[in-house]
């Protein structure tokens, strides 16, 4: 018997769709997350790509590395079974501490033409394309919750938050998106 695939912490909490003029998509992608913290004086390599610099992300072979803090990154990959990303990240282990955060944090995806306008209500950093943009990452507060904000595509953001706070963030996103409408997806 195969293992039961864990649910997203927000499964069942997605608000009912709200029709609107330019609806946003609120998604709950199931991701594996591994926190990488470089050891003193060591340079983590071996994933096949260089870990990104401040405020940037890098992606190769389905693994996205997000800069979190000096010498600290978060790896994100689509769910592929318990511990799969930790196994794939093993080449980093001699130079970095690896912690599986797949259950500690979760990802909320906000997509649509108005996604930047919605985030502008909840978050104080400048998301204008001339400052931010696809591939950029910011550890900041969204709706007063600590959040890793990643612009995955020109009109899509992924917000990585502590799972215990995620329901509040989803609620805040839905409220902020109400004037445009939203639908799961």
């Amino acid at each position: 018997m195969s293992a039961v695939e864990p649910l997203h912490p927000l499964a069942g909490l997605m608000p009912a769709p709200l029709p609107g003029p330019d609806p946003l998509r609120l998604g709950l992608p199931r991701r594996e997350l591994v926190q990488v913290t470089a050891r003193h004086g060591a340079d983590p390599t071996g994933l096949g790509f260089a870990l990104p610099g401040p405020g940037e992300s890098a992606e190769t072979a389905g693994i996205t590395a997000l800069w979190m803090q000096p010498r600290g990154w978060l790896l994100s990959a689509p769910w592929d079974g318990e511990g799969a990303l930790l196994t794939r990240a093993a080449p980093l282990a001699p130079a970095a501490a690896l912690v599986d955060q797949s259950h500690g944090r979760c990802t909320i995806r906000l997509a649509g033409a108005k996604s930047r306008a919605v985030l502008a209500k909840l978050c104080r950093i400048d998301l204008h394309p001339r400052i931010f943009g696809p591939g950029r990452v910011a550890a900041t507060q969204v709706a007063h919750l600590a959040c890793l904000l990643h612009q995955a595509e020109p009109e899509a953001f992924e917000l990585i938050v502590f799972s215990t706070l995620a329901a509040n963030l989803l609620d805040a996103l839905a409220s902020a998106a109400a004037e445009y409408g939203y639908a799961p997806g």
Partner: protein
Amino acid sequence: MLLIRCPWCGERPEIEFRHAGEAHLARPAAATDAEWAAYLYERANPRGWARERWRHAHGCGRFFNARRHTLTDCIAATYAPGEEPPP
């Protein structure tokens, strides 16, 4: 909204930061009780330019130093720990 420049993250809103006391306090290697008490408790608390530790608490989590005017709240410079303070 006041923007503070984190040496790693760049300019960020002030609500992400926490003040963390006077900067550049050197722990004495050997001290009398009075000198030790001064190191622990006595602070310059200037009216004017001060060098302070700040922490990007809701961002990268790192401590850094800032040169701030205590009357105007103007932050003239921020710099990473271990760096020479700007003039």
